[in-house]
C-alpha cells in the first residue's frame, strides 16, 4: 500500500514536470491571442497560422544555419529572430490592410476576416514550405538531456523541455506584466483593454495601441511556433489545431488577462499530464472540461471582470 502510494507520488512529480513544460507551450500559444482580444476585441482565428509561420520561419533559419556550417548555438537566437521577423512583418500588414478596414463593422465580420485570412495563409504556407514535415532540432540537440531521478531509476528529460520552454514562458509572463504595468505603452494597452472610449477620451491614440498590440500578439504567436519547432514537426493543418486550444484558454482566462492565460495554461498543462498518467482517454477533452467548469463557476472567466453597464 505504502509502496503503491510512494510510487504514485513519484509519478505525480513526473507528471507535474511534463505538465509544466506543456503549460509553457500552451501559455506561449495563448497569451498573444489573449492580449490581442483584450485590445481589439477580435478573436483572431489567424493566430494559429501565425504560430505555424513562426515555426516554419524558425525551422528554415535553423536549417540554413546547419547547412551553411554556422555555429549551432546560433539556432537558439534564431528562434527569437523568427518570432520578431514574423511579428514585425506580418503583424502591421494584417492590422493595417485588413483589421483596420473593418474596425467599425460588427464583431462577427471582424472575426470572419481573420477566418478568411486563416484559410488564405493555410494554403500560402503550403505553397512556400510544401507538405512534407519540416523540423530543425538543433536547439534540442545542443542542450542535451538532464537525468531526473525516479526512485531507483532515472528519467532523461531534454534540457530544452525542462528549462528553455518554461524559462521563456516565465520570462514572457514577467516581461509582459512588467511592460503592461510599468511602461507608458503598456499602460495605454491596459487602458484601451479596460475601456476603449475612456482611453480615447484621455487622448490615447487607440490606433497606435491597436497596431502595437496586434504586432506584439503576432510575434508572441510566432514565438510559440518557433519554440515548438525544434521538437514538433510542422505540417499543413498545424495551425487549425493550435487555434482551438488557444480559444479555450482565452475564454477560460478572462478577456485580455495575461495572468489568466498563465493560470489557465498551468491548469490545462497539469490536467493533461495527469490525464495521460491516470486516465489517458480524457487527455483530448481536458481543455474543454476545464473551460466549462471554470465558466460554470465564474461566467466572466478566471481573471475576467464582470462588466456592469451604466444605465
Amino acid at each position: 500500500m505504502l509502496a503503491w502510494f510512494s510510487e504514485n507520488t513519484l509519478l505525480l512529480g513526473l507528471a507535474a514536470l511534463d505538465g509544466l513544460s506543456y503549460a509553457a507551450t500552451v501559455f506561449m500559444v495563448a497569451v498573444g491571442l489573449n492580449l490581442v482580444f483584450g485590445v481589439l476585441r477580435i478573436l483572431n482565428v489567424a493566430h494559429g497560422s501565425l504560430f505555424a509561420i513562426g515555426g516554419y520561419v524558425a525551422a528554415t533559419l535553423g536549417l540554413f544555419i546547419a547547412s551553411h556550417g554556422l555555429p549551432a548555438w546560433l539556432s537558439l537566437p534564431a528562434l527569437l529572430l523568427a518570432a520578431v521577423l514574423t511579428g514585425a512583418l506580418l503583424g502591421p500588414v494584417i492590422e493595417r490592410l485588413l483589421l483596420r478596414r473593418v474596425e467599425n463593422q460588427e464583431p462577427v465580420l471582424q472575426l470572419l476576416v481573420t477566418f478568411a485570412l486563416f484559410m488564405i495563409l493555410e494554403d500560402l504556407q503550403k505553397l512556400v514550405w510544401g507538405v512534407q514535415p519540416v523540423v530543425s532540432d538543433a536547439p534540442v540537440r545542443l542542450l542535451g538531456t538532464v537525468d531526473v531521478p525516479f526512485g531507483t531509476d532515472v528519467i532523461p528529460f531534454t534540457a530544452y523541455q525542462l528549462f528553455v520552454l518554461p524559462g521563456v514562458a516565465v520570462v514572457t509572463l514577467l516581461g509582459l506584466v512588467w511592460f503592461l504595468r510599468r511602461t507608458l505603452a503598456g499602460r495605454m494597452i491596459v487602458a484601451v483593454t479596460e475601456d476603449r472610449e475612456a482611453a480615447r477620451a484621455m487622448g490615447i491614440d487607440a490606433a497606435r495601441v491597436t497596431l502595437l498590440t496586434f504586432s506584439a500578439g503576432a510575434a508572441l504567436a510566432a514565438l510559440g511556433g518557433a519554440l515548438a519547432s525544434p521538437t514538433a514537426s510542422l505540417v499543413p493543418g498545424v495551425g487549425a489545431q493550435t487555434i482551438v486550444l488557444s480559444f479555450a484558454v482565452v475564454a477560460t482566462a478572462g478577456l485580455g488577462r495575461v495572468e489568466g492565460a498563465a493560470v489557465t495554461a498551468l491548469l490545462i498543462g497539469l490536467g493533461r499530464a495527469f490525464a495521460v498518467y491516470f486516465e489517458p482517454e480524457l487527455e483530448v477533452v481536458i481543455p474543454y472540461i476545464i473551460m466549462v467548469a471554470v465558466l460554470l463557476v465564474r461566467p466572466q472567466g478566471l481573471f475576467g471582470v464582470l462588466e456592469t453597464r451604466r444605465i
Partner: protein
Amino acid sequence: MRRAGEVLLVLLAAALVLVVAWTVPWLRFVLTIALAKGLAVLGILLLLRAGQVSFGHALYLAFAAYAIAFGAARVPETLLLLPLAAIGAALLGLLVGLFVVRYREIFFGMLNLALSMVFYSLLEKFYSITHGTDGIRLPPTTFAGQVLDPETQGWAMLCLALLLSILFAVLVRIYLASPIGQALAGIKTREARLEFMGISGRRVLLSAYVLSTLMAGCGGAVLAMTTRHVTPALSYWTASGELVFIAILGGSGSVAGPFLGAVAYELTRVYAAALVADAWQMVLGAVLLLVILFAPGGLWGMGRALVGRRRQA
C-alpha cells in the same frame, strides 16, 4: 402585392434549383447538400440577430446525422427518422441551451465550440460503436415504406430539402416578425432594457437557440441521408466556422441569405477544387474577404442593392 411577388420569387428559386439539378445531374447532390447546410445556417442567422455567434452549431448537425446513421440500421424510414433526429437535436439544444444562454459574445461562442469539440471527441472515443473517423455507412432509407432506386432517392432528398428549406424560411420569418423575434433582436442592442420591460433575455435566446438546433438537426438529417456516410469531422470546429462563413456570405438581412450563401459556397468550393485543387482554401478565403470588405451585406445585400439601383434608374 408584395407578398405575391415574394411567393413568386420563392417558387422561381425552387424551380431554378430543380431545373439545374435536372440538367446537371451531379449538381443535384451538391444542391441537396447546400440546402441542408442552409437549414443549419438559418439557425446561425437567428442567433446572429441576437448578436451571438455560435462556433459549435455543427454539433447539432452531427448529432442528427449520427442519430440517422444509428436509426437507419434499425428502421430505415426517412419520414420517421428525419423528425426523430431533428427533435433529438432540438432536445439536446434545449439541454445545452439552458446552460449556454447565460453567456454572451465570446463566452457563448466558445462554450458552443467547446461542447461541439467534446462531442467530436466522444465520437472518436466510442470507437467500437462509431468506428471513429472511418465513420458509419448508412443503408438506403425508404420513403413512406417505398424502396426507391438511387436516382429517385436523389430526387426525393432534393425535394425534401427544398420543402424543409421553404418551410423553415417561412417559419423563421414569422418568428422574427413576432414579438419574441423582435425581442431577440433587442438582445443585440439593449438586453438590459428587456429585463426592465419584464422580458427574460435568456428565455428569448433559448427559444431561438432551440429553434436553431431543430433546423441544424433537419440539415444534419438531410445531409446524412444524402451523403450516406457520417464521420466525426461533421462536428469539428471548422465545420461550425463554415456555417458562420456561409451566413455572412449569404447575408444576414434575409431568410433567403443562408440558402443563397450555402449554394454559392458549395459551388465556389466545387469549382475552386476543380480548377485549383491545390489552393481551393485560398480561393474561398479570398471570396469571403472580398465579400466582407466590399459587400458586408452578403450576397443578399448585394442583390438588393443591384435591384434597388435598377429601380432608381
